[in-house]
Each structure stands twice: as C-alpha cells, then as structure tokens.
C-alpha cells in the first residue's frame, strides 16, 4: 500500500494535455499547489479552472502528462488505494452533483458509511449532523435534492465533502448562487478550516471570497496559467494581461473587494488598464 509523500505539494501538474472536445483545452499545463494553504483559481468562464480541479482530484484522466496528488500519480494507484486515499479529500461540485435518488441526509451519510463500514449508527448521525451544521443545511436533511435551490444543493455538496473531515478540500465555486448571509457563513467556515491547517483548493469568480480567504492566487485564461503566486503579489501585478483578467472577473461579480480593487486603483492612476 502506497503512502502520501511527506512534504509533497497537494497538486502537481506536469505537461498536462487535455482535450474535452475536438480542440485541446490544456496544451502542456504545469502547476503546483502547496499543502496547508488556500489556493484560489480565478479567470473568465471557459478558462479551465473547474477542469484543473477535476484533473487534480483524479476524476478525469489527462490525455498525457502527469497529475500528482500529494506526490502520488492517480493513474498508478490500485482501486483499493484509490478508495482509501479519497477518504482524505473532499470535493464540492459546482452544480452540487447530488445523488438524486437519495435524501440530503443519505447524500452526506454515504461517504461515511463507505469509509467507516463498522461505524455505529450514532457515530454516523453525529458526523452527518456536524457536516450539515458546518454547511448550514441542518434543517434540510429530510429533503430530496430536487426540492432544494441550486445554492442549497451546493451547500449539501459542501457538507458531503466535509463529512470525513478531510485534510484537503476541492471546492468548485462553493458560494455561487448563495445569498449574502449564507456566503458569509461559508467564508467563516473556510477561515476556520484554514486556521485548522486544511488545504483548500477553490475555484470562484467572487472577489469577496478571494480577498477573504486566498493565500495564493492562480489566474487562468483559455487553458493557460497567466500568473500564480501569493495573493498580494498577484493582485498587485501590473502586467496588463493580469489586470485584464481581474477586470473581466470583477465585471462579472456583484460585489467588489477592496483588496483586489487595490490593483485597479493603481492602474486607474496610470489611466490605461481599465480602458
């Protein structure tokens, strides 16, 4: 049985080529995401942010290149290792991806039952209740996914990702379609998870989320990483392409963050970047 490699990054993508359709999306993508930090992916729609998450989590294989998760290549893991290692990661989907034939409770419960088949009923109930409370959906456990709004479905997906209390979380636009109050609650949760040393790999278009929780920022455009690095470095990068992407993301967002607008104010001073 393989073991995680100590000190290895959470994700390493080397020369990844991936074509979801006729045209390639990634033509040799290289990327490293460290452990213990909150890395946020931003970029315009169709940049490939969600696809990076799915590749990194081993949900889709690359056409060529290497994807290492905590130092191990997904393609070299046995079925058993694959199942065991996934206990240590949670994935919240952009559209919720809830199992339609199960209740909200059963959706959250299933990963726990699968990984802890000998757990007592009470232990399972406690784990589900904790995850549901964290995601703010404790009042909806008896409902079916079809009875929930998209925002609520995403919250259930988050609870399902949290139920095993994993050290690594992949979150695909978790606050999209949420109201301001629910977004704030999730931001507090992410902050707590960061404080507890969890690795968060998150895709969002929301500058508020980015400015509140990002340690590192990866900006993507058309399947390429335009820039990556510490949040403060990236948001103050005067590169016109970086400014253009941040501006484009900001124009799609309903709320603005002072931290990201710092960059725009710098460029507004120059009078060129926003034109």
């Amino acid at each position, binding site marked *: 049985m393989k073991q995680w490699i100590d000190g290895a990054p959470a994700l390493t993508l080397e020369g990844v080529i991936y074509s979801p359709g006729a045209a390639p999306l990634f033509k040799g993508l290289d990327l490293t995401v460290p452990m213990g930090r909150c890395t946020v992916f931003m970029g315009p729609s169709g940049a490939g942010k969600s696809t990076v998450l799915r590749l990194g989590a081993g949900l889709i294989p690359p056409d060529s290149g290497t994807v290492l998760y905590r130092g191990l290549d997904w393609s070299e893991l046995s079925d058993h290792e694959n199942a*065991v290692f996934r206990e240590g990661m949670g994935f919240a*989907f952009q559209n919720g*991806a*809830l199992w339609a034939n199960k209740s909200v409770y059963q959706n959250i419960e299933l990963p726990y039952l*699968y990984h802890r088949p000998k757990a007592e009923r009470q232990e399972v109930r406690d784990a589900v209740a904790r995850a549901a409370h964290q995601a703010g959906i404790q009042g909806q456990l008896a409902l079916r996914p079809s009875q929930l709004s998209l925002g609520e479905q995403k919250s259930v997906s988050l609870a399902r990702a949290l139920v095993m209390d994993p050290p690594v979380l992949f979150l695909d636009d978790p606050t999209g379609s949420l109201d301001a109050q629910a977004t704030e609650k999730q931001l507090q949760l992410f902050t707590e998870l960061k404080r507890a040393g969890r690795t968060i790999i998150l895709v969002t278009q929301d500058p508020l989320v980015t400015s509140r929780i990002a340690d590192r920022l990866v900006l993507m455009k058309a399947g390429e990483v335009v820039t990556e690095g510490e949040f403060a470095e990236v948001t103050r990068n005067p590169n016109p392409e970086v400014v253009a992407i941040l501006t484009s993301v900001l124009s799609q967002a309903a709320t603005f963050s002072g931290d990201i607008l710092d960059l725009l104010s710098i460029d507004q001073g120059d009078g060129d970047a926003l034109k």
Partner: protein
Amino acid sequence: MIARWGSAAIKGFRDLFYGCGFFWLIIRESFKLNTHRGVGWKVVVMQILFTGVNAMAIILLIALSLGAVIIFEGAQVFSLGQNSLLYTILVTIITRELGPLLTAFIVMARSGVAIATELSNMVISQEIEAYMAVGINPISYLVVPRFLGVTVSVVALTVFFSAAGLAGAWLVVQFVQPLPASEYFTNLLLHLTLTDLAASVVKGLVFGMIIAVVSTYHGFEANQSSTEVPVLVIKAVGRGFGLLIVANILITLAYLI
C-alpha cells in the same frame, strides 16, 4: 465510401474491445459485492423486483398468446393427443427458441432502456463523478447490482415464459378439443429433454448478461448534454437486439452440433 466503411468497422471493433474490457470489470467487481452494509444487495433485490417481478404480467400475456397460436394452428394440421410432432414444436418454439428471445426483447425494451437512461442522466449531472470523488467505484456500486439483478431476472423470466406458454397452450386447447391434463403434460414431458431446458437457461443467462452490459455500457457513454440521452438509449436498444439475435443463433448452433 470504402473509407466510411473502414472507419465504421474500426469504431465497431474498438467498441467491441472496450465492451469486452467493461464486461471483465463487471465480472471482477461482482465478486466484491456486499462489502458495504449490504447496499449492493439491496439494489440487486430492487432490480429483480423491477426487471423480473414487474415484467411477469406482460411475459405471461405474450407466453399465453404464443402457446395459444401454436396450439390453434397445430390443431388445424395435426390431431391433438398422441401427435408427437406438435409437442416437439411446442417445446422447440416456446422453451428453446422464441421464448428466451422474446423474454430478452421485452427486458431489453423495459429495463435496458430504463438503465441506460438512468445512468446517462447520472453521468450528465456529474453524479458518477461524485461517487468517484468519495472513493466509490461506479462499476461496483451501480453496474454490478444491475448486472446481477437483470441476469437473474432474465433467467427466471425465461423459465416462467416456458412454463406459462406450455401451460397456456393446454388451457387454450380445452376450447378446441378437451384433453386430459395428465395426457397433455405426460406427452409434453416425454418430448422435453434436459438439453432443451439447459439451452433455455443458458440463453436466459447469456441474454441477461448482454442486456445488462449493453445498457450500462451505453449509459456511461453520455458526456455533457441531455440531448445525448435518447440517442444513446436508441443505440443501446439497437445494439442490444442485434447482439441478442447473434447470441441466439450461436447458442442454437452449439445446441444442434
């Protein structure tokens, strides 16, 4: 034209190759069922209920109709009672040839369509990826229970079709030319060999596997859009019927040799 045929042939062989690999995965995972709180067995039972029990009424109707047609038509040509040829025809058509094939067609049209539709919708809504994300193997969790449920159901329905068809023929013959049950069934049993029964069960087994593999395989072929679902379902039914007919011919040839 030749290039198109060549391309279609290559795609056909590639599909067959992937299909064989898929079948091998199902067989391998079938031995690992019931490792997680019996969830797999629950789905097997539900699948048997849907595929087997719920299809009994339509199977009964078709079996009775087939038995009635054979006995009515036979009665025009042969005298009932001691005529051995009529019993041979009944056994050949109902038990060995048409019974298993008609049963498989009905199951393909009911359960095969349902399974392909369900799975392709699950792929499109990323439910399959959600299973993978938590470590659950979709083949083991979704396909194996359906494979076992459909296979067991088709074998059972094939036997049920034979029993209903042969018994139905006797019921119908009472309206044409009353015949003591003991005489009818004794003569029938004299013409019903163990090999006939074995051929029927083997066909049920093979047909059940074909239906399950084809419908799940094409269900997983969906990619992104809900408009793919009807296309894939039609493809599954067409390919399923084709494979059932080919398998029927091969098993019949093996029986005759």
